[in-house]
């Protein structure tokens, strides 16, 4: 009887101790003796931490640097963009164009500012300068860029130029992976203008559509040679103007190029 009571007591004691063991083993720490300056600015604090989620980054991408053997001899084309900024705001620059033999056939340089407005879309504003054939044209531009459903990189911009000229430009591209390094990239680019610009062989309405298909091999993510094909078509008034000027009509070309970024 006595033994049973002792056992019960022991059991109770160990139970009671078990209950509070966590409490017994934890000792709250002393308050800090010294304090970091509470008035430190965010900038000073993050500098001290070596951690700042507002840091700015930049990227330069040569999406297309390519050569093709056209009707008028060797042609070179480029499409590059760059950005610099933080998560919310970025400065951006784009250059796209084509050289035939020794003359710049087409050139668009565009730059400005971009801000994110939703998880997948940015709003963009900037200036555009078109050179190449005919007189140069300058534009104020605004629009959206982003990633549309289906991982489609998208750009949609409208422009306002001198003499009441207006224009719109749309561009869509997407990557299809055949392997982790072999990537097929279809691209569609559409240009439209509000009124005729005969000196630049541009008619109002949808003027041109370019469709490209490029198969690249990513030697590194940053460096990928590719082979591709490009089809460029002109429509309506533009088509007529070009024909009258002796320019080629719809064009289908094979091309070689590299895509590179850093």
């Amino acid at each position, binding site marked *: 009887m006595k033994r049973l009571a002792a056992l019960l007591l022991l059991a109770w004691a160990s139970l009671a101790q078990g209950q509070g063991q*966590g409490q017994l083993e934890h000792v709250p720490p002393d308050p800090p003796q010294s304090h970091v300056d509470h008035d430190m600015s965010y900038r000073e604090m993050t500098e001290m931490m070596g951690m700042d989620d507002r840091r700015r980054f930049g990227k330069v991408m040569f999406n297309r640097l390519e050569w093709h053997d056209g009707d008028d001899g060797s042609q070179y084309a480029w499409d590059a963009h760059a950005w610099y900024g933080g998560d919310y705001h970025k400065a951006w620059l784009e250059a796209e164009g084509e050289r035939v033999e020794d003359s710049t056939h087409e050139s668009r340089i565009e730059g400005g500012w971009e801000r994110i407005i939703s998880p*997948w879309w940015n709003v963009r504003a900037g200036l555009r300068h078109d050179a190449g054939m005919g007189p140069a044209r300058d534009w104020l531009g605004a629009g959206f860029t982003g*990633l549309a459903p289906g991982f489609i990189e998208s750009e949609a911009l409208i422009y306002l130029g001198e003499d009441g000229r207006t224009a719109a430009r749309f561009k869509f591209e997407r990557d299809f992976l055949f392997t982790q390094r072999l990537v097929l990239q279809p691209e569609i680019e559409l240009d439209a203008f509000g009124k005729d610009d005969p000196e630049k062989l541009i008619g109002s309405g949808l003027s041109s559509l370019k469709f490209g298909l490029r198969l690249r091999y990513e030697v590194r993510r940053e460096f990928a040679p590719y082979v591709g094909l490009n089809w460029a078509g002109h429509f309506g008034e533009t088509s007529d103007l070009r024909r009258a000027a002796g320019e080629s009509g719809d064009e289908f070309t094979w091309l070689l190029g590299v895509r590179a970024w850093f």
Partner: protein
Amino acid sequence: MLTRRRFVQGMGGGVLLSASGLPLLGNTRAPSELVGPTFDLTVDTMPVNFTGAARNAVVINGQLPGPTLRMRQGDEVAIRVTNRLREQTSIHWHGIILPADMDGVPGLSFNGIAPGTTFTYRYKVNQYGTYWYHSHSGFQEQVGHYGPIVIERRGGERHGADREHVLLLSDWTDHDPERIYATLKRQSDYYNFNQRTVGDFVADVRKQGWNAAWADRRMWGGMRMNPTDLADVGGYAYTYLMNGVTPAGNWTGTFTPGERVRLRIINGSSMSFFDLRIPGLKLTVVAADGQDIEPVTVDELRIGTAEVYDVIVTPGDAAYTLFAQSMDRSGFARGTLAPRAGMAAEVPALDKPVLLGMGDMGMSHGDHGPAPAAAATAGAVDHSKMDHSKMDHGPAPAPPTHAPAESGPIVDMRASTVKTALNDPGVGLRDNGRRVLTYADLATLGGPIDVRDSAREIELHLTGHMERYIWSFNGQKFSDATALAFKHGERLRITLVNDTMMTHPIHLHGMWSEVVDAKSSFVVRKHTVVVNPAQRLSYLVTADALGRWAYHCHLLYHMEAGMFREVAVS
């Protein structure tokens, strides 16, 4: 040219080179140990060669990982840290309960350790168990600034062993971590070489039919998410190390057959989750994050970044492979337990990577049109249709309500269906035929440190934008948020809802995180809590530590990108 296989396995065999090019350390070394209560540590750079290319690492006392600091419960320790780098450094004592000014977070607890100066950390060690230390300055942790802490229990270990080894797992990279971070900002899927291809789509059409395969692609494409996004940085950039030794180097821990061997396993990586097993041995887990638990025997365990598990094994007269594959299956850390040095056992093949499923997205079936059949292409099927009746106890949590900022531009998804499911082993480990440890298996001995119920609740959602590579709590980056205020002495409940498709290890400095189950019963005391995609998990905190503390995701680049908060206890 260096083949990828060789790169992942490591060419150099984990031999550290001194400035003169002489090997300093062999593969069978035990990480050197310093015994307290007084320690002298020097932080410096040193050339290392893990892959065939020499790189500069940040090392402590000329070692990577740094020396094991052995303390005794009750010690008043003094740790003099001298900085020989050209930049500021710091040491954070991960999991140690100490005064806020000794916690080692520059900008919050102190001003950091300037180049050429010595800072002395002093604190009383009231706890016991396995912990670790690492830099809290910039990206130093990624390049070697970490080491183990072992605190002996007053009165002897509760779970006795004849021998012990520390296993510190980490992810070495030859790349500059600044560049890794910038690269993630420029192209967030840069390091993912397991993405779905056109061939996978064709295979899915064959297997599941056009409708199911198309619906699956339409759903993922609609969300603009990637079901193979299991790790932001993987084997392309990482060579996984065990005690600072590459898989090819084969770190070896010896034992006498029949001994009970305690393995103190620390995930000291910057960005990697490891799934660890020792083919041929059962793992008896006896402590989690330094806290003794009711022993539980498993075949395999997932150890999140910064987590710690102690296991006891009883090996026979043979060699056993310590196999820790990264969660994305892009590589592994490997070592050997053997009666003698120089032995090796078969190294298992990496498991096939699985895809994230509907359950991981926090979507109920039918959220996005027709539910595709279980998606499977790149690898095996992950059973996203988990049997919820087997999950945890209690009712399923109500659909989460999201903070207004979560509807902002820096959050790419919000879970609409969440589960507590502490017994979910996580993506890639479900139904793999092995007994895998889950949080539901953990039971800290002695119960919680505070038996009070919580008086209030703070709900935080783990949020992010994978494509833009922005990470946050409640849709607010650190720079956008104010400090979380805890009242001194209060017992509060923190509920985390993971609105992302990634698994995040969340670390609260200074105070314990006491995880509770769906019925609010105490489960386990931790310093780092792993939250699965679309999981709702709660823990209680006693705010008994005055001062300013860091609270963050322990994936280094997530922390850097905004998944960080200050906690102010006053």
